[in-house]
């Protein structure tokens, strides 16, 4: 099962490698890891999506909590979560099928952000499974390059992960 773990950490050099090292060392598999600063510039938020059973998630949480630079750890239940991911996807196109691809992008609420005579670059920010769907739809046109940010997430409603 996929678990989304939100981690508030000190915004310091070395913290990212520290945390990613912990995952590899203890044999935890990460699907994605996204980092950015929070409203407090001294604090970064890491959103980690990991695949594993409850034992593994408990171990991840505890080992993360043990790290001095980790301020707060919270595994958020999936139905309590707003999850988003950003993807840039460059796809081959010809004068003939450019309209088709533009239609697909439009239906998926994606944006064309760049164009050349034989490619289109599309941007989408949505739930990860919607990104997968767009990728699937564009595959027949020959995908040149994909770049995804990894999932970021916040809890629904007024609750926050307090520092």
């Amino acid at each position: 099962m996929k678990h989304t773990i939100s981690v508030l950490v000190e915004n310091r050099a070395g913290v990212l490698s520290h945390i990613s090292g912990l995952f590899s060392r203890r044999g935890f598999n990460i699907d994605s890891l996204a980092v950015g600063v929070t409203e407090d510039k001294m604090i970064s938020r890491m959103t980690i999506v990991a695949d594993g059973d409850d034992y593994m998630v408990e171990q991840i949480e505890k080992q993360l909590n043990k790290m001095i630079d980790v301020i707060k750890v919270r595994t958020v239940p999936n139905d309590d979560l707003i999850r988003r991911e950003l993807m840039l996807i460059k796809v081959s196109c010809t004068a003939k099928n450019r309209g088709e691809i533009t239609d697909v992008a439009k239906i998926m609420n994606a944006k064309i952000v760049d164009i050349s005579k034989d490619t289109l670059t599309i941007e989408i920010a949505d739930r990860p499974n919607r990104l997968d769907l767009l990728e699937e739809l564009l595959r027949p046109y020959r995908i040149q390059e994909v770049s995804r940010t990894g999932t970021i997430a916040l809890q629904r409603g007024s609750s926050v992960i307090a520092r």
Partner: protein
Amino acid sequence: MTGASVMVQCLEQEGVSIAFGYPGATICPFYDELAKSSIRHILVRQEQNAGHAAGAWGRMTGKPGVCIATSGPGATNLLTALATAYMDSVPLVAITGQVSSELLGRDAFQEADITGAAVSFLKHSFLVKDAEDLPRVIREAFYIAGTGRRGPVLIDVPIDVQNTRLKGRFHYPEEVSIRGYSPTLRGNPLQIRRVVEAMDGAQRPVICAGGGVFGSGARQEVRLLAERCGIPVACTMMGLGALPTGHPLNLGMLGSQGGALANEAVRRSDLLIIAGARAGDRAVTQPGILEKSTRVVHIDIDPAEIRKNVEAGIPLVGDLAQVLEQILAQGPRAHDRGWFEALGLPQDDSAGYGESREGFVNPRRLVRLISSHMEPDGIYVADVGQNQIWSARNCLIREGRFLTSGGMGTMGYSIPAAMGAALACPGRQVAAVCGDGAFQMQMMELATLVQHQVPVKIFVVRNGSLGLVREIQSTCYGGNLSAVDLSGSPDFVALAAAYGIGGARLCSDEAVSAAVERAFAEPGPFLTECVVSPEEGTVQCGAEKEEQR
């Protein structure tokens, strides 16, 4: 005032009286100031031994020991000692020099990314880039190393930071505030009540005492709880000494290297109270089977240990001494001791050391004689290999301590650790017991013992081979002995003499008593070479043979 001078002043503020280290170019500014301070410096002969010595100093005093190394190879030589301290939750602060800040990342001469390399063996680390941060960093390092679950902390200081002139007057912060770190010391009252209920409801409770007993300073509380409630205590190797050897409630050591009584009692128990132990694979070999028949209470200061190796029915996070006091305050009931007394099994090997061999010393009897000859508060340091198992199973521990590298199993631990322990506890007797393999990993420290006249009594158990590996090869690899022959080793007594250390060679059981007596009668360090038959194994005397790995 330079960064280096601030570093030394900070150490003085922390009450550091002794540091173990080895200088080099990038730590020279610090050493320049250290020489002018009140801190005594012990120059070891290899950095790893500075780490072991400082670690043992920390284990004996409860305060972080301090070791120092230069950048590059000096720092990487510390790694094994850091890992050893980390596995055994030892309070330790390591200070390393580093190349100048502007050279970082350019593979400069003697540059090593030590904070990166050591990350998995450290409780925490700092790479100081601004000299103004030094007082805060050093304060935090000592606080982190010496509180909660103890552990090693590394401070890496580039040479230019050591040379920076600081603005303003020196001020050492009194308060520490680290938002990501606040260990839980008091047990949750609700959980305390659940534990007491479980204890009262149990018929055959057993306490499993681990290294946390010493980390927390809970020796008295464990004894009080055991005696008041009639609960027997099985020790992990790190927990040996939680109760004195021979105490009627002491079951001896449990686990794959342990004794029959402890293992059988744990198997039959209906409540196992794990007190400051990881319940690692050597101590609890089959957690799955245990959990089915036994309720488990797991007391640990580190929440991450709970449910890592053993499924705990009742987890209890806190400092062991405080938690046991809380439990005692609830007045748990006394239990009948009949069930484990009726098992009729020995606590250790002393009932039968095995045969006496012509021309050799019996290692089990040797351990018992060394330890029983020492004063009651003596410190016995065991190395790793067969000697560790013989030592753990036969060492007589009263008010003293049994030190060894339990988690990491680091060969070459005993002499530097004994040195650190002896310097931490002047006036107490200290023995270092090692094999001829491990001895040759640390024999350079004979010079340090002489230089500083540290009265460590070394006993080298000599069987001419890497005994434990040989034993594994004999039992599990069809007797194909591969790379275990130690031919070429020197005469250790002559070697000691070359250092100006007195020595004696022992080849018979009759001579042991007098030789041990003589070793402790000598004022300074002393080396006794004890010739043991290569046929001597660690599995015998009714102990169950468990799978060797």
